[in-house]
């Protein structure tokens, strides 16, 4: 391997710089890895292909990883793929284990990134061939499997599932998207609101509204009690951290990394599904599923290994089929075409140097991510010592930036932030649950397309069960996941007075 052909100090510096900027983007609620790559894409033209990719891949890895910081410390997922990190990371931080949660998340991210990189390097073309065996049917079942986590996340099964379906319902408002296979017709738009609602609500404003603005409203309601309580400020600085926390969790870590990678490989299933699926699996197969959602380290591990596993996975279809695995890798296609490089099934064979460079860049990016974040923990942690009356206004402002820029300047997205901020606040008052809601909202549109397309193409309901062995396997997993949550609920019901 002719590594020296492309490695230069500049190459390494670009990866590390990209990773750093990516982490910052990921860590700001509302800014995503996709956006980091989008704003830096024009720069890459002048950098040349290998160096340009070095920067972009650094941004990608950093952006996906940075999301865990606000997810854990503030309870606001920095990116959609860190929602499940919030579920256990934030309770850990509240209980005074913030630093520990961060360390766990960062280690798990590294494992996820490296495992997926290994898979990418060794099996890319084979896996791409396997991925195209997934037709609408199997993709629908994968989404259904991810949706089944709604049940697992509910503290009250009925209300939780209701919230989840409400999330799906609201995600369907607007146009049945032609670019996903829809017919471009409108539905569920209340009369007189079509001007704003024809494109529906965007995910990111909804997410930061529900988690960010709603949290601010909640604090305002209770009067912003002076500063943070002592317990909040003490995020466990003096707690000793040792790798023994990962004892017994290697299966979880590796499984989550593989799930993340695999979800990345399937075009169109979507990045956020990676961490949701890993989380749901970790809970299903855990010996202590009842601890999930209350500050279980294994939940943070699963989520972070899953979303970083995505990074290598999403490159598989890009580099072996010319098809992006998620929205960020879709931008990488732009980087290639800008340089006049074709991506398709022959890419790896035709461009061995670029391929090696990419693998190497991903490796450095993952290591840089780990080092940068691990040693920045104490600075991250300072966030919680900022007085609330300064922190919250700034968060509000950042949420606005995130919402406005996510679709390149649409004011309705900012209003969406407010609508769902108020809605999120209301939900907690009437005991509806935010976590299943947002998962329903994220997965709703894909569930619809794959469900309707299955019926459209096969014209028969039995195909869901008979299409392939993959479908059968997925049904088993769904049954396990739903059955597990139902069992837990009844046990909880019995043990409660």
């Amino acid at each position: 391997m002719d590594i020296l052909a492309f490695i230069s100090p500049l190459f390494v510096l670009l990866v590390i710089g990209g990773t750093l900027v990516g982490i910052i983007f990921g860590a700001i609620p509302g800014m995503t890895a996709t956006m980091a790559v989008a704003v830096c894409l024009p720069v890459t033209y002048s950098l040349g292909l290998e160096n340009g990719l070095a920067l972009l891949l650094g941004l990608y890895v950093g952006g996906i990883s940075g999301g865990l910081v606000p997810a854990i410390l503030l309870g606001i997922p920095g990116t959609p793929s860190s929602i499940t990190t919030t579920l256990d990371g934030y309770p850990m931080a509240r209980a005074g284990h913030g630093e520990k949660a961060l360390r766990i998340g960062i280690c798990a991210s590294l494992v996820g990134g490296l495992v997926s990189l290994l898979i990418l390097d060794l099996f890319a073309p084979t896996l791409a061939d396997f991925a195209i065996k997934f037709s609408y049917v199997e993709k629908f079942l994968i989404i259904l499997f991810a949706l089944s986590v709604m049940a697992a996340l509910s503290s009250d099964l009925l209300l939780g599932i209701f919230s989840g379906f409400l999330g799906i319902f609201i995600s369907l408002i607007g146009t049945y998207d032609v670019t996903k296979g829809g017919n471009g017709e409108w539905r569920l738009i209340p009369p007189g609101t079509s001007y704003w609602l024809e494109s529906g609500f965007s995910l990111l404003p909804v997410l930061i509204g529900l988690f960010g603005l709603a949290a601010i409203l909640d604090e305002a309601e209770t009067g912003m009690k002076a500063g943070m309580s002592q317990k909040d400020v003490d995020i466990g600085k003096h707690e000793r951290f040792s790798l023994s926390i990962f004892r017994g969790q290697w299966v979880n870590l590796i499984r989550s990394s593989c799930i993340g990678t695999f979800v990345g490989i399937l075009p169109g299933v979507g990045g956020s599904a990676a961490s949701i699926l890993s989380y749901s699996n970790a809970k299903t197969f855990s010996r202590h599923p009842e601890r999930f959602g209350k500050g279980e380290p294994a939940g943070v591990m699963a989520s972070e290994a899953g979303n970083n596993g995505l990074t290598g996975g999403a490159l598989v279809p890009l580099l072996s089929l010319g098809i992006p695995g998620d929205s960020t890798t879709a931008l990488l296609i732009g980087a290639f075409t800008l340089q006049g490089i074709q991506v398709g099934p022959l890419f790896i064979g035709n461009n061995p140097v670029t391929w090696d460079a990419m693998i190497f860049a991903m490796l450095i990016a993952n290591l840089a991510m780990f080092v940068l974040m691990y040693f920045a923990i104490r600075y991250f942690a300072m966030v919680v010592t900022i007085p609330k009356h300064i922190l919250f206004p700034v968060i509000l402002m950042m949420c606005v930036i995130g919402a406005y820029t996510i679709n390149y300047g649409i004011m309705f997205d900012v209003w969406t932030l407010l609508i769902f901020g108020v809605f999120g606040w209301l939900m907690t008052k009437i005991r509806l649950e935010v976590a299943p809601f947002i998962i329903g909202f994220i997965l709703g549109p894909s569930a619809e397309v794959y469900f309707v397309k299955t019926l459209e193409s096969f014209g028969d309901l039995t195909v869901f069960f008979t299409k392939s062995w993959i479908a059968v396997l997925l049904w088993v997993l769904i049954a396990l996941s739903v059955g597990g949550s139902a069992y837990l609920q009844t046990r909880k019901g019995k043990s409660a007075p």
Partner: protein
Amino acid sequence: MGNLTHVTINFDTSHLIFPTLIGCILGLLGLAIAIRDRRAIAASGAHWRDILGRMDKPRFFGTLALTIAYFSAMVPVGDIWPNTGMGFLLCSIPLVAGSGLLFMRERSLRKAVPLMIVAVAAPVLVWWLFTDLFFLTLP
């Protein structure tokens, strides 16, 4: 048997299938909740009175009012200097200052000074970062 499971989808109306399905499930779940939790629902008046009674009303409604004013002002202000992000910058400074003062407990000049510095510095910094460096559009 084959006929029972057979479905034909008309592409022109296929946008309604899934919403209808989800709507029905939602209705059923809602009904189940209404039956199970009928007592709690009947007592919701008291529940809300309780919430409102305990609420820090100036801060809560103040936050809402400031946010609405902030969002509403951004575009008109930005339109005076099109595509410069001024709407964001000029509205964010008073928002951060205003909501900061609103959230502050035991207001004092000593606490207000750092807030005011942040209220000016933070929006200017992000504005510069996003419009000049990242070349993104702000209102």
